[in-house]
């Protein structure tokens, strides 16, 4: 097991190198002079030239890339072009806000997604199933920013129940300010989870062992919980894990709409102002987080499915079957 984890962690190195390579070159090959971005369009030509040298922009791209990687390996992500503050400090400062939002979003997705998915599967082709499938199609298709605006029009402006934007300070204020962004963020994921739960449940629902379980007189509730859901769980966990990773990095629109001071907003602002070090730093950080989440998901498999667990152990594939 440990060997597997270490192997996976080592595999992250080429992934991160690939990410840095792609982002670095895309950001640097798009037009726009970082020196002009820092100094503004009124700066003199001499000042711009001096700034370019200071930033090392006079060196070839490949040299700059390796300098960046070398600095990164020494824990130095550089200074933001825009505000000249440490990239690492800003990323670390904003990440918890994004994590709070992503966790709240995935909770919304789970609380809505799994029960609705189960009911849908068990009542396949009924009105209930059709309704939830249509709603989840709407949920997947609806743009986040639009849903966010609608929610804040309704709950903040018309009803006055919740703040329309911002991140509250203090526990109660924080929770109040979290509800609308979490709903906005979670809706799309919830829809994905519903569909995944439904299809995965449908796959096991007609298996022989389910009939056997029922024949043995186990209550329908127990059958659903212990025999269907547990066996249907792997694809669901995969979907949820991927969704969570996406929420961590993909909260940009939601954070912008709700003025949530997270990493997504920071990235949008940085991309708009071509703040290369900031974009690089935030992307690398998110890539690490995404890889870690994926690793955790893979490890969770082994807790759900003994067959996978046994593959990790040296003992190999023993005759441990799922009990029916």
């Amino acid at each position: 097991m440990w060997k597997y984890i270490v192997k996976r962690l080592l595999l992250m190195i080429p992934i991160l190198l690939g990410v840095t390579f792609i982002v670095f070159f895309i950001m640097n090959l798009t037009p726009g002079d970082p020196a002009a971005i820092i100094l503004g369009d009124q700066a003199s030509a001499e000042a711009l030239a001096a700034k370019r040298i200071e930033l090392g922009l006079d060196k070839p791209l490949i040299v700059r890339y390796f300098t960046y990687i070398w600095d990164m390996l020494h824990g130095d992500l550089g200074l933001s072009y825009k505000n000249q503050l440490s990239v690492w400090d800003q990323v670390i400062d904003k990440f918890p806000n994004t994590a709070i939002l992503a966790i709240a979003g995935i909770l919304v997705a789970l609380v809505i997604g799994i029960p609705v998915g189960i009911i849908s599967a068990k009542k396949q082709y009924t009105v209930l199933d059709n309704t939830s499938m249509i709603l989840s199609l709407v949920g997947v298709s609806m743009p986040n920013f639009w849903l966010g605006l609608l929610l804040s029009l309704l709950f903040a402006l018309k009803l006055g129940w919740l703040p329309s934007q911002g991140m509250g300070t203090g526990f109660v204020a924080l929770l109040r300010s979290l509800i609308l962004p979490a709903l906005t963020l979670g809706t799309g994921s919830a829809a994905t989870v519903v569909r995944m739960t439904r299809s995965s449940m449908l796959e096991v629902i007609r298996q022989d062992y389910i009939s056997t379980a029922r024949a043995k007189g186990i209550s329908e509730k127990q059958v659903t919980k212990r025999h269907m859901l547990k066996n249907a769980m792997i694809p669901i966990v995969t979907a949820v894990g991927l969704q969570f990773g996406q929420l961590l990095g993909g909260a940009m629109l939601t954070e912008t709409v709700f003025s949530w001071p997270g990493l997504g907003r920071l990235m949008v602002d940085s991309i708009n102002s071509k703040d290369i070090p900031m974009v690089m730093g935030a992307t690398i950080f998110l890539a690490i987080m995404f890889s870690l989440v994926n690793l955790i998901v893979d490890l969770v498999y082994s807790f759900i499915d003994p067959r996978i667990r046994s593959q990790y152990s040296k003992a190999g594939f023993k005759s441990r079957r799922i009990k029916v």
Partner: protein
Amino acid sequence: MKKHLVFFLILIVIGSFAFAGGSSERSSSSEGGYKDTIIFAQGADVTSFDPHVGKETPAVAVTNHIYDTLVDVNQETGEIIPQIAQSWEQIDDTTYRFHIREGLKFHNGEDLTAEDVKFSLDRAIASPSISYIVDFIDTVTVDDDYTVTVTTDAPYAPALRNLAVPFAAIVPMDYVSANPDILKTAPVGSGPYKFVSWSQNDSVKLEAYDEYYAGEPKTKNLVMKVIPEAAQRTIALETGEVDIAYDLLRSDARRVSEARDLTLYEIPSLSCYYITFNMNKAPFDNKLVRQALSMAIDRQLLVDTVNGGSGEVANALVAPAVFGYYNPGDYEYNPEKAKQLLKEAGYPNGFSCTLWVNNNQERVEMCQAIQEMFREIGIDCRVEVLEFGAFISRTTAGEHDMGYFGWVTSTKDADYTYYSLEHSSQQGAAGNRSFTNDAKVDELVEIGRTSSDQDARLEAYKELAIYLKDLSNNAPIIYTTLNAGASNKVEGFEPDPIGYHKLENVQVRN
């Protein structure tokens, strides 16, 4: 059963949060019927609290409460008024002497003396981001603790107006020398508000400086909230989460003006949008062609439709509120005459060309409308949208046929615009992207720049406006307006035409 209980408990908790009254973010009230906090929202965060670096409007809208400048400009009369300098005299064409108010203190308790003024101006001149505002200064000398002499390289008429620009802020010497980067995040000035805290991408908190020379600000706390989504700024204003919201969407502005408990403030800005013709390229080196293109543009229609009725038709590069503005008469819209001019210029069948614009939706829409108007007179014009950095660097290099630009006369003095955009020494990066090189223009710009006689300056700018209209190296299109929305409870809010709104005299009724 247990699960149902848990579910209900969760529901109750969520419900109680949802219905719990008054968020802690709202401004709390104090005695006297006025709130002790003003909350205002803007679209972007402060880039740097260092006044010699952070020159973007959202930064200055906050930092100009923290720092003062030597002098200020009276918004209504346009006159130069004292601020840190109590008085001043112009000794000769190139020498100014300033008498600093005695007893001024920075927020950290340090005395503000002539040394700080010298340090600050020297620091501003050395800052590549904003030196263009103060680089007219040759030397700054300290005569005594409260007297400073500023000499200029050459006679420079707008000197005082430039010193009133927030970038020429006075900062504490000892505090900044100890750590040159400190102002980026821990600003100290001598302005009406002290810095309290900054939560990046979220908010800035300021507190009234009770020793401010002009009296303590009327409201104790000032909170700036960053709300990037324009529609959300309006919603936050409507729900009362903020008292003032800057820069509303045009569609929202109407809603705000119709709302019973809100007020829309709309004032002419100091921005002018214009098309620059690259005179280094044929056929734009031909005056008749430039005049024809300018004449093909129905400016009023652009204001009414593309700009949704806000703004005004431009007739010069400087806006009416700027010192030195003269109206040379509106630009004529006459497609028939334009075709005639093209014929005279030797292009009876028109020609193909490109119009460059940076990737800003409103600007692109404007160019698309203009493209159609050019088509009416037989010009096949392609609109090319460029990323801002590329737009600036490629037009600096003179690769464009035509470019759609915006310009703000931030010193409120015509010299700032005419010198940068029209003087032959300013070609390229400095602003003159029509690459005009005209002796008459240079002469008039220089009179305006150097004459200490205000009437002579105005006369020169009048002549220049008329001459430029004929030269048509730039086609001014539209003066924009600047808006803000506020609750009806807000008193004393006077929007600034650049967007550097000051709130020290603003109060919000309970």
